C-alpha cells in the first residue's frame, strides 16, 4: 500500500480555532488515490469531506490548522517547506469548486482566463496556449469552443460555466483533479454531461477525487468510495461492492434515504433520525451510535477502529453482523 499511490494521505487532522475553542473538522483520515482512478468522498454537510482536501492543499480558512501527512507523487505537501505544495498546486494538482460563477473572473473572457493558467506558469507560449485552450474546451464537450473563447462568464449557461471551470483546471495537464461538489448547482441534464466529462478525463488517465453528497453521481463515476461521518472515514470500498452491500450502518442508511426512480414505490422514505454530533463534541464511543439501527452496547463506550478486510475498510463494531 502507499507506494503506487499518486496521492497518499495519512492520519490527517484539521482543526479550527473558534470562539468556543478548538473544533476538529477532520480526524485521523487516511486515504490514497491511484492514477486513472476516481475516488468519491461522500458524507453529509459538516462531515469534513471538503475540509479534508482543503487541508491537504493548504487552502483552509483563517484559523484552520492541519496535521498529518499528504504526499503527492512522493512529495510531502504538508512539510515545513511550502515549495512542493506551491509547485504542485494549480499545475499537477487542480481543483474545481461547486459554484462555477465564482470560479471564473467576470471581467475576462473565457479564452483569456484559460491561456493565463499556462502563460503565468511559463508552460506554453501564446500560440501553444491558445491551441491548448481550444483542445481542453473540446475535451469537456463545450459546444462551439471557438466562440466560447471570446465570451464572458455571464454569457454562458451554468453547465457551460462549470465545463469552462473544469477546462481551466485541465489546462496544465494535471495528474490529479479534486472536484468539490461540481454538479450540485446544476440541473440533472447538465449534471449528466459534467459526469461524462469527468469520466472521460478519468479514462484518459487523470486521477479524480469527487467530493459529493449525491450517491447517484457517485454511482455514475466512482471506482472507490470513502464515506465520512463526523470528521472520520467510516467506510472505504470499491464502488460496486459498496452499493451492492454497505458494511457500515451509516452507509446503508445513507443509501436507503436516497429516493430512486428505478425501484417500486415504497410508502415512506427511510431517513436517518437525529443529527450528527455538533462539531467539537466527540463522544467516547462511535459518533454514529445514537442514530444507528444496529447499535450494540459497546458502541457507546469504545470507538471502533477503521479495520481492513480484503479491499474494504470499515469502522464499526457491528459490521460483522451487517455483512
Amino acid at each position, binding site marked *: 500500500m502507499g507506494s503506487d499511490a499518486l496521492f497518499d494521505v495519512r492520519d490527517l487532522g484539521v482543526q479550527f480555532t473558534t470562539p468556543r475553542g478548538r473544533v476538529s473538522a477532520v480526524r485521523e483520515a487516511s486515504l490514497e488515490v491511484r492514477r486513472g482512478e476516481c475516488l468519491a468522498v461522500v458524507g453529509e454537510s459538516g462531515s469534513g469531506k471538503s475540509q479534508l482536501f482543503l487541508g491537504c492543499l493548504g487552502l483552509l480558512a483563517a484559523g484552520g490548522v492541519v496535521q498529518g501527512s499528504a504526499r503527492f507523487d512522493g512529495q510531502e505537501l504538508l512539510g515545513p517547506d511550502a515549495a512542493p505544495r506551491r509547485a504542485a498546486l494549480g499545475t499537477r494538482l487542480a481543483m474545481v469548486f461547486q459554484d462555477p460563477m465564482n470560479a471564473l473572473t467576470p471581467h475576462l473572457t473565457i479564452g483569456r482566463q484559460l491561456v493565463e493558467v499556462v502563460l503565468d506558469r511559463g508552460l506554453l507560449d501564446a500560440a501553444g496556449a491558445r491551441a491548448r485552450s481550444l483542445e481542453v474546451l473540446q475535451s469537456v464537450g463545450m459546444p462551439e469552443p471557438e466562440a466560447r473563447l471570446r465570451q464572458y462568464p455571464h454569457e454562458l449557461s451554468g453547465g457551460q460555466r462549470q465545463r469552462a471551470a473544469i477546462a481551466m483546471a485541465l489546462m496544465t495537464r494535471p495528474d490529479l483533479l479534486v472536484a468539490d461538489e461540481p454538479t450540485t448547482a446544476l440541473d440533472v441534464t447538465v449534471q449528466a454531461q459534467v459526469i461524462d466529462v469527468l469520466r472521460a478525463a478519468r479514462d484518459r488517465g487523470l486521477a479524480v477525487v469527487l467530493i459529493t453528497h449525491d450517491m447517484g453521481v457517485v*454511482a455514475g463515476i466512482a471506482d472507490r468510495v470513502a464515506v465520512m461521518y463526523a470528521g472520520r472515514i467510516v467506510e472505504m470500498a470499491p464502488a460496486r461492492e459498496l452499493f451492492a452491500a454497505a458494511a457500515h450502518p451509516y452507509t446503508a442508511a445513507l443509501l436507503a*434515504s436516497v429516493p430512486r426512480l428505478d425501484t417500486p414505490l415504497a410508502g415512506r422514505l427511510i431517513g436517518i433520525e437525529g443529527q450528527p454530533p455538533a462539531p467539537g463534541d466527540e463522544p467516547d464511543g462511535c459518533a454514529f451510535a445514537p442514530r444507528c439501527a444496529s447499535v450494540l452496547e459497546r458502541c457507546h463506550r469504545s470507538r471502533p477502529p477503521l479495520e481492513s478486510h480484503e479491499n474494504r475498510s470499515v469502522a464499526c463494531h457491528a459490521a460483522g453482523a451487517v455483512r
Partner: protein
Amino acid sequence: MTETLLRVRNLTVRFPMPRARLVGPRPWLTAVNGVDLEIEAGRAVGLVGESGCGKSTLALAILALVAPQAGTIEWRGQPVRHDDATGLRRMRRELQVVFQDPVGSLDPRMSVGESVAEALEALEGPQAAAASRARVGSMLAEVGLDPALHTRYPHELSGGQCQRAAIARALVGRPRLLVCDEAVSALDVSVQAQIVNLLADLRRRHGLALLFISHNLAVVRHLCDEVAVLYRGRVVERAPAAAIFGGPRHPYTRALLAAVPDPDPAAHARARVPELRAAAAAESVAVVGCAYRPRCPLADDACRMQAPRLEDAGDGHLAACHHGRVRPPAS
C-alpha cells in the same frame, strides 16, 4: 365531489428586459407562457423542469407575488385580483409557501417560536399570549421540532430544523394548499427524506394539497399524485404521476428521467438513451414551431411548422408533442 382549490387558465407572465440599444423596442422575456393548471383539495401536484423553465415564476404568480400579463387565476372559484387587498388576505390564509433556503426564509433576529407566532398574528390578527403559545407549540411539535428548540434562533439550528420551522410557519394558519418551491433541494439526503415524510404525513393528516416544485424527479415521484412538466414556460406534459414515470410521452420528459443518476453503478454501465446527448444544443435561440425541437431526437418537419398543443390522448395523459402518441421502442 372534491373541490378545485386552484384553477389557472392561460397564464402568461412576462418580464421587461434591458433594451439592446438606447432606442428601439424593449425585449420581453416570457417566463410563463399560456399555462393551465388545476389543483384539487388534498392533491399533490409536482411541477418539474430545468432551471429557467418558469416553475418558480409560475409559483410566484399563483401566490399573487408577481402580476401576470394575461390569463386568470381562480382560488376556490373566486378570481384572484391584485387590487383586492381583502381577497388576497383571505386567500393567503389558505395558500402558503415554503422556499428553498431554510435559513434565509426565517428572520435571524427572531427565535423560531417568535417567527411562527408572527405568522399566526399576521394571518389571524392579534392573539392572546397563552393561546398563541399553545398553537405555536403544538405546530412546532407537529413538524417534529423538539420543544427545547422553540426559543432558539435560526443560526443555532441545522438546515433541516430550520426547514421544519419554515413549514410550521407556513402551516400555523391551517392552509389548504402549500406551495413548496424546491423546499427539500438544499438538504442532505437523510434530512431530505425526513422532510419528504413529514410533508406526506401532513397531507394525510390535514388533507393538505401541495404544489411541489422540484428538479428532483425521484422526490416528486414519492410525494405527488400528478406531475406537470414545464419547458420554456409551457406545460409540455401533464399526467398522473404513475403515468409520467411509467410511460412518459414527451421526449423532454424522457430526457429528464434518463438524466437522473440512480445510485446503482450497474445502471450507469448500461448504455444511456440518446436523448440525453441531444440536450447539449444551444439553448438561447428563438424557435419557430416546437420549442424543444433543437434538442429533440424525434424532430421533423411537422415540429418545425407548428408548435404542438397540449392534448389529452383520451386517458387523462396530456402531452404537447406531435409524436406524443407514438411510443418509441423501449430502450
